[in-house]
Each structure stands twice: as structure tokens, then as C-alpha cells.
């Protein structure tokens, strides 16, 4: 399972990098080249987002990418083909990220089966709280896929425990209130928050939302297992092109 991979990898590296792409944005060809650049740049694991028309928890940059991908004709099926291709070709774990309706319409069980078949290792479904996740957990469990859940600064300790008890792979900690990509300021409360997170779970911790340069990564070193770079790589692609991604990743550590 993912947690083992992460712990193992952390023996060599003081922090892991997880990046994010929206499948099919700007195109599936580009998506493939971006993954390639990222892997070459040395990322340790990756989120592949299956676009959804109503990505309620994503900020404007990722929202935009979702929309463009769908406009370009992206389908769930095509995303799975893509996922299968990259997980066969590249030697890092890929997890899927999408909204619950994509699973629900597909059939949660069938979706999990298909994820497993594509070689994916887990999933992040930000609009699926553990209370609503019965079918999902079962389907994920049956396929040995990690259900990755989220902590946020206003999640209570009790609730963290509850979430942790359902979660697998790692826990995705939201660094600050807000949607993906907003300016992060690591507040005074930040350390208290992280120690609450660590105390609540045995699982590795990923920290996301707003990480954008080597300084941010440096700051996280020693505090969490994984730094998540989401929006920022999309910005790099948009502003400097696909070929700039590798350099951007390399500079992060």
C-alpha cells in the first residue's frame, strides 16, 4: 500500500514531492509530456485529476483546467486509458483525484475496479466526507486502493481520529483555509495544527494548498512527509510551457 511506499522513500529523502495534473489539460498528449517532465524532475508521486464540471473545492486555476479539458472532449474513459498508460510507463505511484459524482455515475464499485485495473494506487475525493463514504470505502478496500482523506485546520481532534480510521495511504492536510492555489501564509497556528494532525493518525502526512517554491518546500521539510505542488505546476505550464516543468520541479528541492 501507499503508506509503505512513502515511509520507505522517506528513508532516503527528507521530504517527498507530490504533483498534480488535470488529465487532458491542455490535451492528453501534453498531459503525458507533463507527467514525463515531472517524473524526470524527480517527483515521488502524482495526483491525476479526472475533470468534473462542478469542481467545488478547486480554485480558479484548476477549475479552469477542468473546464478546458472537458471542452476538449475529455471523458472518464479516456482519463482511465491515460492513467493506465502513465502508471505502466512510469515507476512512481499515481493516485486519482476527482469529485464524487464521477464515481457515483460510473458506479462506485466499477469505478474502483477500473482504477485498480489501470494501476492507480488510491484516490482523493474532496467532496466525499467519511460519513457519506460507505460504498466507496468498501469498493476501495476490495481493490486494495487507498482512500485518501483530508484534514483541515478546523477539523476537531475527534473528527481527525474518525477520518484517520477510514483513511489509507496518507492524509492530505490542508495548510490553510481556502481553495487550492490561494496565497499561503504559514501562520503561528500552523505548528499546532500539524502536531494535531500527527497525533491523530499513524499515516504519513501530505501538505497541500499553496506550496509554490523551494522556500515553501524547505519550510515543510521535517514537518510533513509530502509537499503537494498543485496549482503552481499548472501555472508553469500555462506561462512557461510544458518543457519548463522539469526544471521547476528540480529547483524545488
Amino acid at each position, binding site marked *: 500500500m501507499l503508506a509503505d511506499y512513502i515511509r520507505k522513500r522517506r528513508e532516503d529523502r527528507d521530504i517527498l514531492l507530490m504533483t498534480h495534473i488535470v488529465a487532458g489539460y491542455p490535451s492528453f498528449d501534453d498531459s503525458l509530456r507533463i507527467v514525463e517532465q515531472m517524473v524526470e524532475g524527480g517527483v515521488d508521486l502524482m495526483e491525476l485529476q479526472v475533470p*468534473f*464540471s*462542478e*469542481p*467545488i*473545492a*478547486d*480554485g*480558479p486555476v484548476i*477549475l*479552469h483546467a477542468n*473546464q478546458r479539458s*472537458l471542452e476538449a472532449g475529455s*471523458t*472518464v*474513459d479516456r482519463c482511465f486509458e491515460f492513467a493506465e498508460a502513465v502508471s505502466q510507463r512510469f515507476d512512481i505511484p499515481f493516485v486519482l483525484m476527482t*469529485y*464524487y*459524482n*464521477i464515481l*457515483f*455515475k*460510473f458506479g462506485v464499485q466499477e469505478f474502483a475496479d477500473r482504477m485498480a485495473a489501470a494501476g492507480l494506487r488510491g484516490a482523493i475525493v*474532496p*467532496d*466525499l*466526507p*467519511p*460519513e*457519506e*463514504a*460507505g460504498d466507496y470505502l468498501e469498493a476501495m478496500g476490495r481493490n486494495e486502493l487507498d482512500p485518501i*482523506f*483530508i*484534514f*483541515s*485546520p*478546523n*477539523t*476537531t481532534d475527534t*473528527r481527525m481520529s474518525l*477520518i484517520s480510521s477510514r483513511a489509507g495511504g496518507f492524509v492530505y492536510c*490542508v495548510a490553510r*483555509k*481556502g*481553495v487550492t492555489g*490561494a496565497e499561503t501564509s504559514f501562520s503561528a497556528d500552523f505548528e499546532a495544527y500539524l502536531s494535531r494532525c500527527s497525533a491523530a493518525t499513524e499515516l504519513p502526512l501530505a501538505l497541500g494548498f499553496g506550496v509554490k517554491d523551494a522556500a515553501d518546500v524547505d519550510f515543510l521539510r521535517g514537518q510533513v512527509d509530502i509537499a503537494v505542488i498543485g496549482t503552481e505546476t499548472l501555472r508553469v505550464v500555462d506561462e512557461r510551457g510544458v518543457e519548463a516543468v522539469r526544471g521547476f520541479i528540480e529547483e524545488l528541492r
Partner: protein
Amino acid sequence: MSEQGYFGEFGGSFIPEILVATFEELIAAYEEARADPAFWKTYVDLMGNYSCRPTPLTEAVNLTRHFGGARIFIKREDLNHTGAHKANNVMGQGLLIQRMGKKRVIAETGAGQHGVATATMAAKFGLECTIYMGEVDVARQRPNVFWMERMGATVVPVTEGSRTLKDAINEAFRDWVTRMDDTHYALGTACGPHPFPEMVSWFQSLIGEEARRQVLEQAGCLPSRVYACVGGGSNAMGIFGGFFEDDVELVGVEAGGAGLDSKAHASRLASSDATLGVAQGYKTYFLQNPDGQMNETHSVAAGLDYVGVSPILAHLSQTGRVRFEAATDEEVVDALSLTMQKEGLIPALESSHAFVQAFKEAPLMSPDEVIVINQSGRGDKDIFTIADAFGDPEWEAFIQKKAKEYDAR
């Protein structure tokens, strides 16, 4: 797992973790308020002193004579301050905001009606206010934007997605995620995550409470049928709420747009085009493609032009308690026209959907029977849309002349 907020298989709360605490707070405040009779009294008094509740129930003598069937009564939500039932919900949530001690309110709006109502409430309660509105709607509903801004609200055009109501809802959630400490999101209809469907229906239940009392007083009997248009479902839930326990048929009328077989409509329950899904925080019937991506919908009435529908109504449709029908754009314009000419009333295009179905059924009913139509809002706010729906050439000439005046500046 808690079954809170479910109506049959519909509803629930599918929200990002970061909002969970906020929703818990809201649910607590709502449940406390609901358990406190003083709250409801404050609410009723506010609506009596600031809006004009109870709104009248008007007997439509001429329409009744015209159709020669059931006696037609019209519940006059158009007379509310800001011109629609939306005010009820918004003022109720305003009182909750005061209770929670928040200082800022945000809302989505499609047609602009809920945005204007929210901006109005914010002005009255001294709250900072941001309204999210699809860019397409900002462009076509500029008068409402104008009023919101004059009332001191910030109107943010949403430029992603179909740039209409559902995108505005997404954007409002995005805002809320970043500022839930001081902000309340006043959702405009009986949709979204728990407690919104239930809470909004509760605030709107004033309509049905009054209507039941009034129709008994004025007609001496309960109505055989009650008609309401259904966008998100709040005005329908409001008026139906007065009659759930009675032997009264409840009829919800959705946007039939260019026709149910055209795909250019917004009928989730009256058509077979919608399927069960989860989006915008709740589970209901959505107009979506097989992948679960939401479709573009269409209606002449911006307020009905929405992909989802109240989970409570989805449930009541499933149980058969509420019957669902659809009215096409064309039928709507005809019903509006007839109502203006016969009664001097101007129902909103949204409300006119309910009139269409009532007009189809009234002639087939007996003169002993009574029906009630909910006139959820007034149409005169939507002159641009209505003038276009009628294709009025003099209106066009007026706008062209006005534009030339501005050009000349």
C-alpha cells in the same frame, strides 16, 4: 454514518472537509432557532414590518370565468419586498446570521432575484455582501446588478463553466471555504447540502401556512390542487408546506424550455432526462451526461434554469406526493399574457410556469373545486427578458435610441 439531511435517498451533505465545521455551526444555529418559538415570531414580525406579509391570496375572478372550471386563487408572493418569495428565505437567514454573529454574507444568483434580496437584507442588517453571478447572467440581468451594487453589495461575475447559476453556486462555496469564520453563505433555494434544503423550506413555509388559512377563509374549503413552479424548489416547498397533511394534490411545474424532447429544457423530475447524481453538495436528480458532467439547461425563466432540484422534492416525486409537469417557453409567454390582460397581474416568467399547468387543468375541473397558484414573483423586474420573449419592436427601438444617447456622450 448519520442519516441527517436525507429525504429518502436524496439530500445528504457532500462537502469539502474544510466546510464541515462551518456546516456544523450552521446546523446547530438552525436547530436552536427552529426549537425556539421566539425566533419564528421575530421572523414573522420582521416579514410583516419590512416586507408585506401576510401576502394576499387574490381570487382570480376573470380567469376563473374565462376557463369556466375550478375557482382560481393566486398567492401573491410578488408583493414581497424585492418582488419575490426569495425575500422570505433571505430575511430568515439574515436573522440566523445575527444569531451566529457573522459580519458578512455571500450568495449566488441566477436571475438576480436572490442576489437583490440578499443585498437588500445585507443593507438592512449592516452586513458586508458579495454576490456571485455567472458572467452570462451579469450581462443579461444588468438591472439587478445595478440594484445590488447600489445597495452596497459587490457583484462578482463568474467566468468559468456555463457562467450561470450553478457556476455561481460553486464560486460561492469557494469563497465560503476561504472565509467561513466571518461569512455566511445564504443559499437561495431548497438545494445544496444539509441543512439548506430543510432550512430554506422552513423559512418559505410561511407561504403555505398563510395560503392554507386564507383559502379556508376566502373559499371556505381546501383547494383540490396547488401549483408552484420549481427551479431549485423553494417557493414550491414553501406553499406545498401548508398542505402536506391535507388531501390536496400538489403540482410542481418545471421549465420545459423548447420542449421535453428538445434537450433544451430544465426539467429534472417531469422529464426522464435527469439521473441521480451528487453535485454542489447534495444528492438529487441532475441533468447530466453519462460521465456525470452537468448539461447546459435552458429556460426562458432564468430562475428555473438549473441542473439540480431540491432533494426534498425529488423524494416527494418518488413517493408520488407531488406531481411534476413541465411548461414550455411558448406556453409560459401565453399564460403570462393572459394573466396580465385578465387580472392585471404580472407574474414573473418563473411563476408563469405554474400558471400554465393550472390553466391546462382548471377548465377540466368542477366549479366547486378550488385551486391555488403560487405567484412566486413579479415580472416587471424582468422587462428585458419579457420584452424579448414578446419580441416587442417598440421596446427594441427604445433601447436603440437610448444607446444612441449614450453613444453621443
